[in-house]
C-alpha cells in the first residue's frame, strides 16, 4: 500500500512538475498563432523526454551515480566540458526565465510591478533550497502545479468545436499569414520546451538524492511513462485554450496575463485565482529545479560534494554555484529585459543544446559497466538514434530559422 502511494505521489508530482514557464508561454503562443496545427510536436517531444528520462532513471538506479558524473568519466573531461557548457548555459537561461515567470505571476495577482517582486522571488528560491528537504520541495510544488489542470477544465468549459480541433491537429501545416519558416521555428521551440535539458539532469540527480536502487526502477518508470505524458496533456490543454479563444480573434500571446486569460473567460475569478497559484507553483518549482540543476551539473563535473542529502556546509561549493546563478538571474532581469522574450529564446537555445545533452546519455545507457544487464536493448537504441537525428536537425535549424523569421515574427 505504501509502495502504491509512493508511486501515485511520484506520478502526480511528475504531472505537476512537467509544465514550466517555457511550456506555458510556448504552448499558448503557438495555440494562438497556429491553432493545434503544431500539436504533434508536443507528442513527439513528450515521447522523446520519456525515452531519455527513463534512460537517466535506469542509469541512476543501477549505478547509484548521476548522469553528469558518468558523462565526464565515460567520455573524458573535454567532451564532458562541452556538454557541461552547453547544458549549463541553457539551464541558466531557463532559470532566468523561471524567476521572471514567478515575478510575473505575482504581478498579475497583486498589481505590483514584477521588477519589485523579482529579488524577493530569487531570495525565496534560495531560502527554499537552503532550508527545505528535497523530497518535500519536489512534492509540494509538483502537487501545487497540478492546479494547472484548470487549463483542461477551461478548455472543456469554453465548449470548443472538437471536430475542428481534431482537424487542426491532424493537418501539420502553417495557416493564415504564417509561413513554413515560422511554423518550423515554433515547432523547434515547442520541441525545446518539451525536452529542456535541465529536466533530465534534475531527474537523474533527484534519483541520487532519493537514493534510488534497482527496486525503485518501477517508481522511476511510472513517473516517466505515466506522469510525463499526462503533463504533456496539460501542455496540449494550454495550446487548445489559446487556439479556441485567441486564434479566431487574431490575438498573439506576448504576456503571461494573456496565457491565463482563457481560464478567466471560461471559469471566472475563481478559475483565475487557481491558475495564478498553479502558474506560481509551476514556475517556482521549475526555478528550484533549474537552480539546483545549475549546481548539480558544475559540482558533478568538477567532482565536488553536491546535493541536499548532505548539510549545506558539506556541499558549500555546490550551494555557492546556486547562489551565484540566482544573483546572475536577478541582475539579468533587473536590466528590465522582458521575461517572456527570455522564455521564448530559452526554449530555442535549449533546442540547440539538445544533441550535446542527449548523446552522452545514450552512450552511458549502453555501457554495461554502469547499467549492467539493464543496458539499452535494440528497440530503445533504435528510438534513441531516431530522436538523436531529430535533435540534431532541430539544433542545426534553430539559429538559421531564428534569423530568417526575425525571432518568429
Amino acid at each position, binding site marked *: 500500500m505504501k509502495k502504491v502511494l509512493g508511486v501515485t505521489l511520484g506520478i502526480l508530482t511528475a504531472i505537476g512538475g512537467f509544465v514550466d514557464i517555457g511550456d506555458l508561454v510556448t504552448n499558448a503562443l503557438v495555440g494562438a498563432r497556429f491553432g493545434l496545427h503544431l500539436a504533434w510536436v508536443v507528442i513527439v517531444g513528450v515521447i522523446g523526454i520519456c525515452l531519455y528520462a527513463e534512460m537517466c532513471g535506469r542509469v541512476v538506479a543501477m549505478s547509484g551515480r548521476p548522469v553528469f558524473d558518468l558523462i565526464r568519466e565515460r567520455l573524458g573531461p573535454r567532451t564532458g566540458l562541452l556538454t557541461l557548457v552547453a547544458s549549463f548555459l541553457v539551464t541558466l537561461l531557463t532559470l532566468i526565465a523561471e524567476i521572471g515567470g514567478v515575478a510575473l505571476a505575482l*504581478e*498579475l*495577482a*497583486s*498589481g505590483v510591478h514584477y521588477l519589485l517582486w523579482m529579488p524577493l522571488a530569487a531570495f525565496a528560491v534560495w531560502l527554499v533550497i537552503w532550508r527545505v528537504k528535497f523530497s518535500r520541495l519536489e512534492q509540494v510544488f509538483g502537487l501545487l502545479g497540478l492546479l494547472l489542470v484548470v487549463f483542461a477544465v477551461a478548455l472543456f468549459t469554453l465548449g470548443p468545436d472538437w471536430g475542428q480541433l481534431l482537424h487542426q491537429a491532424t493537418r501539420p501545416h502553417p495557416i493564415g*499569414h504564417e*509561413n513554413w519558416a515560422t511554423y518550423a521555428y515554433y515547432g523547434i521551440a515547442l520541441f525545446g520546451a518539451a525536452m529542456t535539458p535541465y529536466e533530465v539532469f534534475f531527474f537523474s540527480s533527484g534519483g541520487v538524492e532519493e537514493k534510488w536502487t534497482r527496486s525503485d526502477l518501477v517508481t522511476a518508470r511510472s513517473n516517466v511513462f505515466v506522469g510525463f505524458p499526462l503533463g504533456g496533456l496539460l501542455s496540449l490543454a494550454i495550446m487548445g485554450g489559446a487556439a479556441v*479563444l485567441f486564434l479566431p*480573434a*487574431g*490575438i*498573439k500571446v*506576448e*504576456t503571461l*496575463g*494573456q496565457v*491565463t*486569460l482563457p481560464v*478567466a*473567460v471560461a471559469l*471566472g*475569478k475563481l478559475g*483565475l485565482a487557481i491558475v495564478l497559484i498553479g502558474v506560481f507553483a509551476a514556475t517556482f518549482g521549475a526555478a528550484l529545479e533549474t537552480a539546483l540543476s545549475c549546481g548539480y551539473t558544475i559540482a558533478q563535473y568538477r567532482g565536488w560534494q553536491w546535493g541536499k542529502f548532505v548539510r549545506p556546509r558539506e556541499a558549500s561549493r555546490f550551494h555557492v554555484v546556486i547562489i551565484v546563478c540566482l544573483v546572475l538571474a536577478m541582475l539579468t532581469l533587473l536590466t528590465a529585459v522582458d521575461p517572456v522574450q527570455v522564455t521564448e529564446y530559452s526554449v530555442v537555445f535549449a533546442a540547440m543544446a539538445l544533441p550535446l545533452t542527449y548523446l552522452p546519455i545514450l552512450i552511458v545507457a549502453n555501457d554495461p559497466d554502469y547499467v549492467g544487464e539493464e543496458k539499452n536493448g535494440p528497440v530503445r537504441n533504435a528510438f534513441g538514434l531516431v530522436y538523436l537525428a531529430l535533435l540534431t536537425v532541430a539544433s542545426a535549424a534553430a539559429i538559421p530559422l531564428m534569423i530568417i523569421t526575425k525571432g518568429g*515574427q
Partner: protein
Amino acid sequence: MRRAVAVALLLVLVLSSCADPDQKLRSAAAQSARDAASEVSTTRLAVEQLRAHRLWSQSAGQMVEDAQKGVEKAASSFSSQQPSTVTSTRLYEQVTKTLDDAQTAVTAVRIALGNGDLAAAEQQLTALRRSDADLGRIGELAK
C-alpha cells in the same frame, strides 16, 4: 562553383534592393496592423470580461497596460518606414491614423481602469471594435 554562389548571392542582393517600395510598405503596414489588432482585441476582451465580473480589476489593468505598450511598439515600428511614392505616402498616412486611433482607444481604457471607472472603459468598446475592424482590413494588405 564559387562563382555560381557569388552570382547567386549578388542576384539575391540586387533583387532585394529592387523590391517594389509600395509592396515593402504594404508588408510593413500589414505586420504593424496585425500586431496592433492583437493588442486591441486583448484590451476589448479584458474590458468585456471585467464587465462580466470574470476578471479582477488589477489583472485587467495589467493586461491593458501591456496591450498599450504593444500598440505603441507597433505604431513606432511603422512610423520609421519611409514612403517614397504618392501611393505609399497615402497608405502611410492612412495606416498611421488608424494606429493612432487604436493607441488612443487603448490608452483611454488604461486610464479609465486606472481610475477604477469601468463605465468609461466600456464606452471605449465601440471605438475598440471599429479600430479592430480597420486594422484587420490593413492586416490583409499583405501576407
